[in-house]
C-alpha cells in the first residue's frame, strides 16, 4: 500500500486547528474540520445544522479572516468542509490522517479519542497537537493497532509561518508511520522536522519557556527594564526583533503562563525548575487580562492621542503602570553594530563589560547549561534543540550554535572562572579535544553526538542542496564580493548573491555575465538562488540604490545608461543561451529581484513569496527587463496566436497596474495570481529544499532535451494603451488617489510597456522595449522628485510619495 493524505481531519477549529486545516488544504488534501456542538442551543436550534455548526463555522471564518493570512490562497478554503462531532464523526472513517487540536484537557482528549477509535479506518494515522499533555497518558487505553498509528504532531502558531513541526513518537508507533509523517511534513507541508521525546512541552517550548522565565526573573533581580532586556535579546544576539517581551505580547501572556505552569508542575526534577515560576507581576497581568496584542496591552501598549498619533508605552513591573517608551542603549550593543557577522556581534555583546553585556552573558550561560542538560532527556542531539529554537522561536542561531560562535572552550573556561557549572556532556566533549558542536569538512556538516562521543553527519534530505556546504568543499568556481558561482553537482551551477538584502549591483551583473560564459562551456544549466536567512528573508530586495544615487550625484547618467545596457545584454544572453536558467526566489523578491526571476527560463519559488515590481516607490521603473518580461509573460501565457486576436487591453491593464501600483504578492499562489509566476513555474513548500528543487528542475529540462527559446518579436498594446492610461490617470489624480508625480511616472511606464510610439498590435523587437526602459530610467533619475524618493528610501527604508 502506498500511503497518501487524500483526506485529513482536523478536530478543533481554534486558531491552531484552523491554521493546520489551511496548511493541509494548501498542500492539496481534502480537509474535514470538526468541532463541538454548542452546549447552549435552544430546542429549536438543536435541529438546525447551521446552529449546530456554529463553533466550527466561527473557527473556519476566523482562519479565513486571519491576518497575516493563514491560507496561501483563499481558494484553498474550498477544500475544507466543516462539521460537528455529533453529526459528522462517521466521516472520520474516510480520513487518512486525523489531527486532534482540542482544548488541553486530558479527560476531554481521552473521550474524544475513544470516539475516534470507533470510527477511524484501520491503518489511518491519528495524531495529537497537544503541547503539554504526555502522549502516553492520552493513549493509555488505546488498542494495540491504534497505538501503532498514533503519535504527536506539534505545530507552532501561526501554523503557516512557523517552520517547526515537532514529531513525537509514542512507545509503540510504527516506524513506517513516523517516516511517512516526517516526509509528508517536510515535503508537502514544508515544515522543518524536529524529533522530540514524550516529555512535558517537548523541545521548543521546554527550552523557550525556560529562557523567558529565567530572563523575567533575572531582570527583576538585576534591576533591568523590559525594553533593556528586549534590546539585548534582539538581532544583536541573533534573536528576532520582537526579542523576549514583544514576542510574548504577540503569542499572548496567557499561553506563556500556561506553558510555564505546565513545565513547573510536570518537570519536578528539572535543575532550573525555579526559573519557570513566574514573578508575581506576571500573575497580576494575567488576572487583569493584560495578555498582549490580543487585549491591546501586555508588556507594551500603543496609545493614541486625540490627534491619532501613536505613543508607545511599556509596563513598569514595580508600579504596574505604563510609562513612555524610550529606546535603551548599551555600549556593547553600539559596538556590535559595527560587526559584520552575527558571530562577531554575539561575541561583542557577550564579552562586553557593561551592565547589559553582563546580563546577556548570564542569560546565555543559563541557555547553554539548560540546553546541554536536556540531552538526552528531551531530544537526542544538539541539532534538534538548535532547530527547534530557529524554527519555532525564529532565533538565527540555536543555543549550541551560539555557543560555537562564542567559542565553546572559551565560554566554558569563563563559566568555570565565574563559578557556573559546565554541563557534564560538554565538559566530556572538550576533554576529548573536540572544541565545537558543529564542524564542516569537505562540504559535509557534522555535529557532535554526546551519546557516541564522536562527530556524525548532519542528516539531510536527498533533494537538499546546501550552498554553504558546497562552498566549504571547494566547489566555488567564480566569485567576487557580491556574488559567487557554485558547482552544485551534476554539471549544474548556482549563482548566489550575497550582498546586504541581496541587493543587485554592478558586481552581480558582472558575475552574471561571467557565469553565463562559464556555464556555457562547463555546465548543463544554472540556478539563481541563495540561502540567506531570516523570515521571510530576501532572495533579493531589489537594486542597490546607493549605486544609482552615487551615479546621479556625480551626474554620470551615461554610466547608468551603459550599466543598464550591459545588464540587458547579459540578461538576453542568458535567456537565449544554450542552457536553462532557473530562478529560485523566496521571501522578498522585489524590484530587481523580481526582474531576475522574470528573466529566467523558469521559476521554482518558495510558497512564502513577497514578489513585485515596486520601483515606482523610489521614483523609478523596472529597467532590468521587468517591463518587457512581465508583458512577455502575459502575452506568452496565451496559446498559439490567440494574442493576435485578443483585446490586448485585458493583458495590458493588469501588467500596467502591477507596475504602477507597486503591487506585491503575499504568497507564491498570489504571485501566480498576479502573473509573476506562469504555467511552467513551480511552487515548493519547503524552503530548505528550494535550491535542490531548482536544480532538479534544471536537470529535468536538460533531460527533456532543452530547447532554448527562439527570439521572436512581441505584440504590443501600442499608443492605444497610452490613451487608456492617460484618461484613467486624469481621474485618479482628480480624485486625489495619486500624487502628480506618481501620475507622471505611471504615464511613462505605460509608454514603455506598450512599446512606445507604435500602433496597437504592432510586433516589436524585445530590444525596443529594453531601450525604452533604459531611457525612462535615466530620465527619471534626472528628476528631483525621484532623487528625493531614492534618498528617503536610503535613509529610512520606507517609500516617499511626493
Amino acid at each position, binding site marked *: 500500500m502506498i500511503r497518501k493524505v487524500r483526506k485529513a481531519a482536523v478536530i478543533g477549529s481554534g486558531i491552531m486547528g484552523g491554521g493546520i486545516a489551511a496548511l493541509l488544504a494548501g498542500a492539496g488534501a481534502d480537509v474535514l474540520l470538526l468541532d463541538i456542538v454548542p452546549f447552549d442551543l435552544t430546542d429549536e436550534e438543536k435541529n438546525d445544522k447551521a446552529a449546530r455548526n456554529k463553533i466550527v463555522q466561527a473557527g473556519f471564518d476566523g482562519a479565513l479572516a486571519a491576518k497575516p493570512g493563514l491560507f496561501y490562497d483563499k481558494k484553498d478554503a474550498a477544500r475544507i468542509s466543516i462539521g460537528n462531532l455529533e453529526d459528522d464523526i462517521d466521516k472520520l472513517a474516510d480520513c487518512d490522517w486525523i489531527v486532534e487540536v482540542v482544548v488541553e484537557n486530558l479527560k476531554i482528549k481521552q473521550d474524544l479519542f475513544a470516539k475516534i477509535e470507533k470510527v477511524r479506518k484501520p491503518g489511518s494515522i491519528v495524531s495529537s497537537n497537544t503541547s503539554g499533555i504526555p502522549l502516553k497518558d492520552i493513549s493509555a487505553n488505546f488498542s494495540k493497532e491504534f497505538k501503532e498509528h498514533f503519535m504527536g504532531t506539534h505545530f507552532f502558531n501561526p501554523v503557516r509561518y512557523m517552520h517547526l513541526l515537532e514529531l513525537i513518537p509514542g512507545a509503540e508507533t510504527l516506524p513506517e508511520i513516523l517516516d511517512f509523517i516526517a516526509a509528508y511534513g517536510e515535503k508537502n507541508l514544508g515544515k522543518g522536522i524536529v524529533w522530540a521525546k514524550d516529555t512535558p512541552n517537548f523541545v521548543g517550548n521546554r527550552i523557550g519557556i525556560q529562557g523567558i522565565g529565567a530572563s523575567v526573573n533575572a531582570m527583576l533581580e538585576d534591576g533591568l527594564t523590559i525594553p533593556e532586556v528586549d534590546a539585548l535579546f534582539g538581532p544583536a544576539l541573533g534573536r528576532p526583533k520582537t526579542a523576549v517581551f514583544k514576542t510574548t505580547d504577540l503569542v499572548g501572556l496567557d499561553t506563556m503562563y500556561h506553558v510555564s505552569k505546565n513545565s513547573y508542575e510536570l518537570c519536578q526534577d528539572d535543575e532550573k525548575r525555579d526559573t519557570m515560576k513566574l514573578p508575581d507581576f506576571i500573575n497580576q497581568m494575567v488576572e487583569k487580562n493584560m495578555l498582549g496584542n490580543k487585549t491591546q496591552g501586555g508588556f507594551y501598549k500603543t496609545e493614541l492621542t486625540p490627534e491619532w498619533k501613536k505613543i508607545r508605552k511599556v509596563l513598569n513591573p514595580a508600579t504596574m503602570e505604563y510609562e513612555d517608551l524610550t529606546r535603551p542603549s548599551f555600549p556593547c550593543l553600539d559596538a556590535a553594530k559595527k560587526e559584520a557577522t552575527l558571530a562577531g556581534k554575539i561575541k561583542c555583546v557577550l564579552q562586553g563589560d557593561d551592565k547589559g553585556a553582563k546580563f546577556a552573558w548570564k542569560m546565555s550561560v543559563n541557555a547553554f547549561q539548560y540546553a546541554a542538560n536536556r540531552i538526552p532527556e528531551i531530544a537526542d542531539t544538539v541539532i534538534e534543540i538548535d532547530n527547534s529554537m530557529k524554527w519555532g522561536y525564529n532565533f538565527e542561531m540555536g543555543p549550541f550554535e551560539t555557543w560555537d560562535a562564542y567559542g565553546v572552550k572559551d565560554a566554558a573556561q569563563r563559566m568555570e572562572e565565574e563559578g557556573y557549572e559546565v554541563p557534564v556532556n560538554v565538559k566530556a566533549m572538550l576533554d576529548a579535544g573536540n572544541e565545537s558542536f558543529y564542524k564542516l569538512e569537505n562540504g559535509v556538516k557534522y555535529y557532535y553526538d554526546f551519546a557516541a562521543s564522536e562527530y556524525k553527519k548532519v542528516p539531510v534530505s536527498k533533494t537538499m542542496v546546501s550552498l554553504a556546504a558546497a562552498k566549504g568543499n571547494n566547489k566555488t568556481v567564480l566569485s567576487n564580493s557580491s556574488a559567487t558561482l557554485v558547482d552544485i553537482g551534476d554539471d549544474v551551477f548556482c549563482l548566489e548573491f550575497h550582498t546586504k538584502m541581496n541587493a543587485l549591483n554592478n558586481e552581480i551583473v558582472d558575475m552574471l555575465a561571467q557565469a553565463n560564459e562559464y556555464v556555457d562551456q562547463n555546465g548543463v544549466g544554472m540556478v539563481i538562488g541563495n540561502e540567506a536567512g531570516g523570515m521571510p528573508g530576501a532572495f533579493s530586495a531589489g537594486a542597490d540604490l546607493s549605486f544609482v544615487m552615487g551615479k546621479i550625484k556625480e551626474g554620470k547618467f551615461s554610466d547608468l545608461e551603459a550599466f543598464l545596457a550591459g545588464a540587458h545584454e547579459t540578461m538576453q544572453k542568458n535567456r537565449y543561451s544554450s542552457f536553462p536558467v532557473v530562478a529560485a526566489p523566496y521571501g522578498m523578491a522585489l524590484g530587481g529581484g523580481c526582474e531576475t526571476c522574470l528573466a529566467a527560463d523558469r521559476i521554482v519559488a518558495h510558497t512564502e513569496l513577497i514578489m513585485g515590481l515596486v520601483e515606482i516607490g523610489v521614483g523609478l521603473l523596472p529597467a532590468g527587463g521587468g517591463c518587457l518580461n512581465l508583458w512577455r509573460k502575459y502575452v506568452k501565457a496565451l496559446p498559439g496566436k490567440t494574442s493576435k486576436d485578443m483585446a490586448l487591453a485585458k493583458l495590458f491593464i493588469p501588467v500596467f497596474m502591477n507596475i504602477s501600483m507597486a503591487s506585491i504578492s503575499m504568497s507564491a499562489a498570489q504571485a501566480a495570481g498576479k502573473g509573476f509566476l506562469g504555467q511552467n513555474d513551480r511552487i515548493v513548500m519547503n524552503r530548505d529544499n528550494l535550491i535542490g528543487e531548482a536544480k532538479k528542475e534544471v536537470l529535468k529540462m536538460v533531460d527533456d532535451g532543452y530547447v532554448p527559446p527562439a527570439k521572436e518579436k512581441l505584440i504590443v498594446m501600442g499608443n492605444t494603451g497610452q490613451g*487608456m492610461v*492617460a*484618461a484613467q490617470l*486624469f*481621474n485618479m489624480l*482628480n*480624485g486625489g488617489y495619486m500624487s502628480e508625480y506618481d501620475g507622471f511616472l505611471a504615464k511613462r511606464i505605460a509608454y514603455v510597456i506598450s512599446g512606445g510610439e507604435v500602433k496597437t498590435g504592432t510586433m516589436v523587437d524585445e530590444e525596443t522595449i529594453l531601450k525604452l526602459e533604459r531611457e525612462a530610467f535615466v530620465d527619471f533619475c534626472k528628476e528631483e522628485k525621484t532623487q528625493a524618493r531614492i534618498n528617503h528610501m536610503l535613509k529610512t527604508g520606507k517609500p516617499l510619495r511626493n
Partner: protein
Amino acid sequence: MRDAYIVQSLRTPGCKQKRGFFKETRPEELASFIMKTVVDKTKNMKAEYISDIMMGCSFPEAEQGINIGRLAGQMAGFPESVSGATVNRFCASGLEAIALAASRVMLGWSEVTMGGGVESMTFVPMGGNNPSPHPEFSATNPENYISMGITAENVANRYNVSREDQDKFAAESQRKAAAARDGGLFTEIVPTPAYRYVQQEDGTYKKEQFIVEHDDGIRESTPEALGKLRTVFAAQGSVTAGNSSQTTDGAAASIIASKEACDKYGLEPIARLVTYTTIGCRSDEMGVGPKYAIPAALKQAGLNVEDIDIYEINEAFASQALYCLRETGVDKYMERVNIHGGAIALGHPLGCTGAKLTATCLANLKEVNGKYGIVSMCMGGGMGAAAIFERL
C-alpha cells in the same frame, strides 16, 4: 410642419447591473420585448404600420452591437419592411431616438415610427468593453474622457452642493420610489420576462424564464445612514454610491404617429412632442447640462418654469441634479420633480434613460392630470438635453 403624437410609451423595470433580475437577460431580449409590447398594448396598432425604429444605446457594441435597433425589431417579429437604427447620444440616447423618430413624422417622411432605448450595463459596461481613448488627444485633453463621478465631484465643489444636501436628496428619491411602488403608481412598467440559467439535477444548465414586475434597486434609507457611506471617486469628496444613480439594465419604447395615421388606423394620441433641444457645456462638469437645456427648451416652446406640471430630471448624481434645479428655479416646484423618485432609486440604464423617463413623464402627467412635462438629463462629454411633452 406637422405634429408628432405619442400613442404609446412603456418601459421594462430597471434592474441592477450584474446583481439584479436582468443579469442573465440579454439587451436584445429586453429591447425586442418592449418593442413588441408597445405594439400589442396599443389598440388597433400593427407592427407593419411602423416605417422605422430609432433605438437609443450608449455603448452599441458586442451584445448591443450590430445595430440593435434593427435586430431587436426583427426579434420582436416585426415585418422585414420595418427598418431600424441605433442612436447614440450617451445618456440622452433614448430621448434623442424619440426626437428623431418624431422628426421623421413632423417632416412628413414617415407616418408611424418607434423611438426607444435599451442598455444592459451588465453585458456592456459603461465605457464599453475596450475603451480606447486617442493617445495624443487624451494626453492633451483628458477631460474629454473624464470619469462621470469626478464631474459630479467638480459640480459639488465648484457650486457648493453639500454632502448633507446630496444625501437628503438621495433619501427623498428612495422614499418617493418606494411609496410609488407600494402604491402601484408605476403604470408605465410592463412585467417583463427575464431569463436565468438554472443548474438541473443532472448538473447541466437550462435557460429558464421568469417575470420581473418592479424596479429592483429601490432601497429606503435616511440621510444619516447615507452620510456614513464612503466616497468612491475622490478621497476627500462627497459623491457616494448612495447619492449617485444606479447602474442598471432596462429598455423602453414609444410609438409616434402623425395625426393622419392616428385617424387612419384608429390610434389614440396621448401626448405631443412640443420641442427638443441639446446644448454643450464643459466636459469636466457635464452634470450642469440641464441648467442650459431646460431654459432653452422652455424658450423654444414659449413656456415658463411654472407652466410645467411634471419634471423628470435624470438623477445622474444628486450633486448635479440639485445644482441644475437650483439654477433653473425649478427647485421652487420640488413637488413636481421626479414625483416617483429618480435614477438614484430607480436606476440609470444609460441609453435607455431618455426613453424610460418619457414613459414615466407621460404616466405621471396622467396621474396628476397635468398638461406639460419636461424630460431632461446631462451627458458625458459635457451636454444637456431637454424635451417638452404636452399631454392630450
